[in-house]
């Protein structure tokens, strides 16, 4: 029987940034038992970890430092535990961000975080943040292998996902780019797959049936213990 007791436990890292309730409900829907926590031992004892987040990069890093959560997150990655980083969580994985000055990130994935330009090529004002639905595409140079072993498997290239963000990531190693999206002429990396880390700029928990499929795929990867073996090695 599918009760919370025999469900797989995943930790949703709570560092005071943003609203985590929809992440919890999506996990529940995908058959995962989500525990929202800032407790290191719970994080390390969970079978998967979600790094969510909304808000400012600098505040988020300060909060992770204050709660002494930086080394546990790095340990999760080192141990090969599946990690899903969402929105600001994805940006925090990078080396650095230009948000309100300059900030060091977790430096788990080499790369930087930059802001959308204020104007397009025609000089017209662009609405920032991007709020709403946009399409994720498989990078044209890649074959479908990475996509098909990632939480995006059985989701079509070109599917719509829900975004809310002003900044986006530029990973140094282009092979980690799992999907790209274009907003007001700027093409950016909308998902990353690197070893046991899956990161997305959009919110799968707010992206209707296709987003929930992503949580289910991630849950399957944890359950089948296939995650770290199957996901892309770089």
């Amino acid at each position, binding site marked *: 029987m599918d009760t919370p007791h025999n469900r797989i436990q995943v930790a949703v890292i709570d560092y005071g*940034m*943003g*609203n985590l*309730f*929809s992440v919890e*409900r*999506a996990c529940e*829907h995908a058959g995962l038992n989500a525990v929202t926590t800032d407790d290191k031992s719970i994080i390390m004892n969970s079978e998967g970890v979600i790094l969510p987040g*909304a*808000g400012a990069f600098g505040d988020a890093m300060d909060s992770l430092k204050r709660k002494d959560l930086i080394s546990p997150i790095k340990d999760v990655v080192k141990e090969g535990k599946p990690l899903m980083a969402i929105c600001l969580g994805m940006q925090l994985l990078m080396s650095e961000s230009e948000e309100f000055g300059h900030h060091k990130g977790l430096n788990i994935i080499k790369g930087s975080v930059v802001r959308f330009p*204020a104007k397009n090529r025609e000089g017209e*004002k*662009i*609405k*920032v*943040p*991007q*709020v*709403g*639905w*946009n*399409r994720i595409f498989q990078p044209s140079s890649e074959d479908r292998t990475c996509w098909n072993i990632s939480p995006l498997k059985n989701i*079509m290239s*070109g*599917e*719509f996902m*829900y975004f*809310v963000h002003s900044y986006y990531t530029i990973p140094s190693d282009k092979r980690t780019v799992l999907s790209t999206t*274009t*907003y*007001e*002429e700027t093409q950016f990396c909308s998902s990353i797959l690197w070893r046991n880390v899956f990161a997305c700029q959009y919110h799968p*928990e*707010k*992206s*209707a*049936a296709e*987003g*929930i499929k992503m949580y289910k795929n991630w849950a399957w990867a944890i359950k089948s213990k296939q995650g770290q073996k199957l996901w892309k090695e770089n």
Partner: protein
Amino acid sequence: MAKNIRVIPRLDIKGPNLVKGIHLEGLRVLGKPEQFARYYYETGADELIYMDIVASLYNRNSLHDIISKTAREIFIPLTVGGGLRTVEDIRNVLKAGADKVSLNTAAIKNPQIIAEASRKFGSSTILISIEAIKQPDGRYLAYTDNGREYTGMEVLDWAKRVETLGAGEIMLTSVDREGTGKGYDIELTRMVADAVSMPVIACGGAGNVEHIGQVIAEGRADAVAVASILHYDFIGYNRGEVDKEDEGNIEFLESRRTFSKIKPVNLYDIKDHLHKNGFQCRYNINQEVVSGHTA
């Protein structure tokens, strides 16, 4: 490449029921909000808005129940507004399952709540609802309590101020047009959309699909809230159940009348119309070939 326009059903809630009025007054009971929400989710709504429009007068528990039921099965952003006064009120509706909150009266009485709430929950969680009424001299003033309470504040000044305070979006309602089916107030929408860099959701007045295209093209809205045209379409072939012992005027629902100015449509029709007229929006990509949409 233009951005994707969001089409957002707005559900006004009174007690356990979905209601609809004209100029935010004269409420008629239409059915159970959860049923409408489910249907809109399945037919491609980009987000949902629940407005508890008489929140200050009634018990809030029914709203929290409706939010929780909705949030368990609906995975698109849900905005909840109406009668939220404190950061604690905000926390409670987020906890019940809302993704964003909409503030009006509380923000006007105490603008610092915008700064405080956006720090706590993230800017993207805080939507400011502006209820605008055009004055005889042509100015637009912001009102509260469904357009009943005068604040004396100019809409444009207030919109710019809420942006600096950290709000994430504006829902801009023309009280004059609301529920009339006469079309959105283009002048009002354009004025605000051009002045702020955050998204503006146009609300009030949609009577047909052409109105939606118009407020996007001419009013430069980033998103549109729609109510009557969708609700009347839904009840046209699907009689929802209604709590008869609860408050509300159900004669309208029983009579099966509709307004001449309002041409009911479903979300497929709206999106199809937008696509055919060159507006981008989210659609079911599995039906791409069938309906002739191109990427």
